[in-house]
């Protein structure tokens, strides 16, 4: 684990995230996996910004109960919003996950994944486009695909879909 990762870990522990996991880069492709509450998303982005990171992508994952993977653990944690999620990536039913991929363009490699779970029925969380300008388009795209509303985003009109699109194709229950 590099120095940078250690510093970041300290930064994030101060933030008290829901989960913070060191992952095996060889197996996963990233070093730090951090799960935060929706309210902490902007805070997390600010930390990354302060450390000179860049936002590579924002995306969503739709964890629909019927479409999700067979429960890897004993049972899917029920409505575990407050409850810390131990294994990031493990499916949590009826939730949306928003994933922020951060990387830095310095010489030290430490890829950080910040994720945030929001209820599927009311997918809302604050925007980070105030911190990273590039998040603007990524969040618009995520809104296109999943209908996740980024509060405070300057313009959530469809980016990739037609201007008048009212569907969200990457939802697991999407039908034409």
């Amino acid at each position, binding site marked *: 684990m590099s120095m940078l990762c250690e510093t970041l870990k300290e930064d994030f522990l101060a933030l008290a995230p829901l989960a913070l996991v060191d992952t095996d880069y060889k197996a996963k492709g990233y070093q730090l996996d951090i799960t935060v509450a929706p309210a902490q998303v902007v805070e997390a982005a600010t930390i990354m910004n302060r450390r000179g990171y860049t936002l590579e992508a924002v995306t969503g994952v739709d964890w629909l109960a019927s479409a999700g993977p067979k429960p890897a653990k004993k049972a899917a944690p029920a409505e575990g919003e407050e409850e810390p999620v131990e294994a990031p990536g493990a499916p949590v039913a009826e939730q949306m996950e928003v994933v922020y991929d951060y990387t830095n363009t310095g010489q030290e490699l430490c890829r950080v994944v910040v994720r945030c779970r929001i209820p599927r029925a009311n997918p809302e969380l604050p925007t980070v486009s105030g911190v990273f300008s590039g998040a603007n388009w990524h969040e618009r795209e995520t809104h296109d695909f999943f209908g996740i509303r980024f509060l405070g985003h300057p313009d959530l009109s469809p980016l990739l*879909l*037609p*201007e008048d699109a009212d*569907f969200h*194709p990457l939802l697991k229950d*999407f*039908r*034409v």
Partner: protein
Amino acid sequence: MGKENLQSAIVQFAALDQLLALGRANSLWPMTFGLACCAIEMMAAGASRFDLARFGAEVFRPSPRQCDVMIVAGTISKKMAPAVQTLYDQMPEPKWVIAMGNCAISGGPFVFEGQYGIVEGADKLFPVDVFIPGCPPRPEALIEGILELEEKITGTRRWPRVEAG
């Protein structure tokens, strides 16, 4: 009434028509209009090795008003469809359309159950004269497509057709 009873007309409109057809067939100006991957092969067809210019078809006009043939090279998305339709409408008669590549023919690899984004073939929007299959078709295929269009216009083929086999 046999054919022989008809007197030959003084003014031969058929010959004039043929002249017009020859003129049009040998001067097919395509539109600078690429949608996706196929557009690169379209450019390659105009470049040194394949040289579409030999047939007088290298004058890629950027304005639809000055084009004769629209080469639909790539996938037409539903968002793009109105624009493509407008471009077609903006071209003056007589005009032709070549659907280049599988996407323009049928949607190609992007057709699946529940697809929400693409138009499954350029012929859903306007009449298409020549279809060139391939993903993407080689530049030779595009040249063959142009020759095919010439044949369609004049009724005669420029060169003997090469039969597969």
